[in-house]
């Protein structure tokens, strides 16, 4: 039915589930998948991709959410002459019920390759491969029948993602799912009709473990933390010790701030020195928990490599409480967009923008007071740009 796929067949071997088998299964019945398989085999043979560069596609009313793709050899692989992807904004925390997923599958069976990523690297459901013609009806059905909407692409806010948070994690310091959903709904227009200098990502992690990698994978990470003291259940501590767990080696000695002490089976934490790294809590989940005065640290500027190099986000707001409707966050985002929108160069991520103009000037532009929490350390050079001086006659 399909040509020989000697190279790809090799990738059906071995214990890990095979994407090739996934494609093959569809290739039996779906011409798009069939030619994807054939073209991919060709790529494997020639060590080279067979896609043409770029191509803008979309649906009515939206300026984002779909990535156009065309085969470089439509003559050989007509099934993938057009092979666009549709990005569906995932629900908070990637939670689904089977009804919803089945609806989505049925629609994608009708209009697309039957292949998808669960999920794309930004968090979307990525429906892999359909024709230009099918985009609009496919989207219409996804939206009206299955209640899905598009995710982001282009120079706008992208699909927000978050960790499982309070839904199943005992360490969530704020409601990551709700913040994600609320902000997503608030910023729909900017997501679907992008008009920022470059992409803008928000990711929400419930605690410093940062299970969605917000600090490096997003422009505006919201990372849960607490301001008071770690909650200790001394009985549970004793149980760990009695169970033979070496608390000193694995917890106390690994505490980066060395702020823990074990005295006669009482575990003490000097919380003023604790840097909220989570390690002790991670290792002793039954005995320790984040404090009660919970909220988040908001950071800014994370991104990967291009053009100015990978940037790990840095602290913008050391601590903020997060309660609906999360107005401070929304105001903050709008302020950033205004300022960055006005002064950024084209295709300059907010992190690059800050590195160019300097965090000090960025704060000033945003009307945020400088704070030593924002820096690892103060400057190490004397080139202070004092802003005023007296002239003769002043």
């Amino acid at each position: 039915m399909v040509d020989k796929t000697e190279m790809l067949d090799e990738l059906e071997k071995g214990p890990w589930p095979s994407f090739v088998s996934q494609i093959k299964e569809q290739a039996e019945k779906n011409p798009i998948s069939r030619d994807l398989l054939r073209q991919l085999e060709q790529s494997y043979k020639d060590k080279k991709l067979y896609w043409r560069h770029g191509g803008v596609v979309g649906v009515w009313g939206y300026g984002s959410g779909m990535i156009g793709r065309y085969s470089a050899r439509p003559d050989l692989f007509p099934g993938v002459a057009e092979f666009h992807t549709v990005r569906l904004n995932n629900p908070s925390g990637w939670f689904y019920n089977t009804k919803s997923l089945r609806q989505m599958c049925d629609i994608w069976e009708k209009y697309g390759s039957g292949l998808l990523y669960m999920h794309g690297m930004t968090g979307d459901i990525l429906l892999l491969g359909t024709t230009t013609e099918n985009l609009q009806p496919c989207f219409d059905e996804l939206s009206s029948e299955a209640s899905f909407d598009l995710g982001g692409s282009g120079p706008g806010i992208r699909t927000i993602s978050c960790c499982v948070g309070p839904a199943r994690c005992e360490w969530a310091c704020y409601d990551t799912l709700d913040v994600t959903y609320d902000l997503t709904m608030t910023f729909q227009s900017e997501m679907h009709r992008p008009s920022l200098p470059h992409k803008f990502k928000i990711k929400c992690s419930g605690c410093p473990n940062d299970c969605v990698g917000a600090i490096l994978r997003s422009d505006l990470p919201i990372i849960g933390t607490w301001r008071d003291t770690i909650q200790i259940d001394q009985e549970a501590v004793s149980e760990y010790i009695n169970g033979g767990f070496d608390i000193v080696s694995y917890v106390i000695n690994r505490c980066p701030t060395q702020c823990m002490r074990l005295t006669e089976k009482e575990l003490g934490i000097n919380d003023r020195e604790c840097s909220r790294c989570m390690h002790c809590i991670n290792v002793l989940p039954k005995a320790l928990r984040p404090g009660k005065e919970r909220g988040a640290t908001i950071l800014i500027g994370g991104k990967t490599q291009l053009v100015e190099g990978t940037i790990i986000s840095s602290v913008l707001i050391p601590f903020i409480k997060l309660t609906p409707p999360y107005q401070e966050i929304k105001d903050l985002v709008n302020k950033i967009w205004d300022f960055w929108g006005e002064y950024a160069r084209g295709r300059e991520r907010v992190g690059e923008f800050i590195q160019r103009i300097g965090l000090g000037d960025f704060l000033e532009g945003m009307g945020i007071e400088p704070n030593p929490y924002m820096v690892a350390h103060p400057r190490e050079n004397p080139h202070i740009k004092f802003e005023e001086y007296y002239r003769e006659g002043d």
Partner: protein
Amino acid sequence: MEASPKARKLDIGPPDYRQFLHPVVKENYGQWKYHENLRPGVLVHVSETGAEIYTVRAGSPRLVNIDFVRRICDLADRYADGFLRFTSRNNIEFMLPNKENIDPLIAELEGMGIPVGGTGKIIHNMLHSQGWIHCHTPASADASGITKSVMDELYEYFTAKELPHRVKIAFACCTACCGGIFWSDIAILALHRRPPRVNHDYVWRVCEIPTTLASCPVTAIKPTYVDGKTSVTIDEDKCVYCGNCYSICSACEIIDPVNDVLSIWAGGKLANARSEPMLAKLVVPSLPSNPPRWPEVVSAVKNIVEVYAQNARKYERLGEWINRIGWPRFFELTGFEFTKYHIDDFKHAGQTYKKSVQLKF
């Protein structure tokens, strides 16, 4: 795109997650007290109320088909009351209120060739970018294929074998790093090794010159005129083959199966646990790209995992271990060669030199 607007509602947003929460999850939302990792792939979370929920985590190739999704939906219907979720590393999670369902679910999953694992101090599911499946800019290597090859080799570390701590692996097909390189314990990055060939017949038609110039991290691109048309020239002595100009301007042709290579990186982390987040560092600058199973790459990754497994302390992430023993020792233990290419020469290069005499001989 010409259809009438009336029929359509824009911006409905994603489905409300609340409808997708299992009743036990909903009732205990925000009230979880602690969890335990019962075995690789199985967690229990216990609530303040005493309620428990059992999570079974199953590995996924990420690129799946609708029948696969339907099959796991069947399982969710049968064992998890019709609810399921995916993780930030593309695994599938079934949350079972009923402990008795764990084993039968696992048996069914394994029967379908879907591994259960990926929790705790083991190798988690790989992250990766598009590769030859969809993108227009990858260097010569396929994301899904390399991921499959690596995960096959490290399979037992996903399902069973404990490591000093979690190890996160990723692949990206170009320096855009969609798949995540710099935040991973171990990463594979496809690289070009040759400057783009500018197709002067196209530049003026398809490229915006200022954006193209600005796309270059090392300002190697200069505007020019060729045959009376605007174009660009690339200073080969400066170009570092990042391919960004190509993604902005397709006339800067960079695709080149002959020269492209795969590089290996190590020591990144995202979590704030113990140490602050760290970027991965270059470990092997160039390995050949050999589809379909990229043996050189797979063995380099495995080498790192094994040396780490033998030498690191419990709860020590790969990067933390390297920081403790020092990079000279890392190169000694892994046998990788240290070359000129390992020495940074980008913007903040000077900050990466060894500025002390604290040396371990």
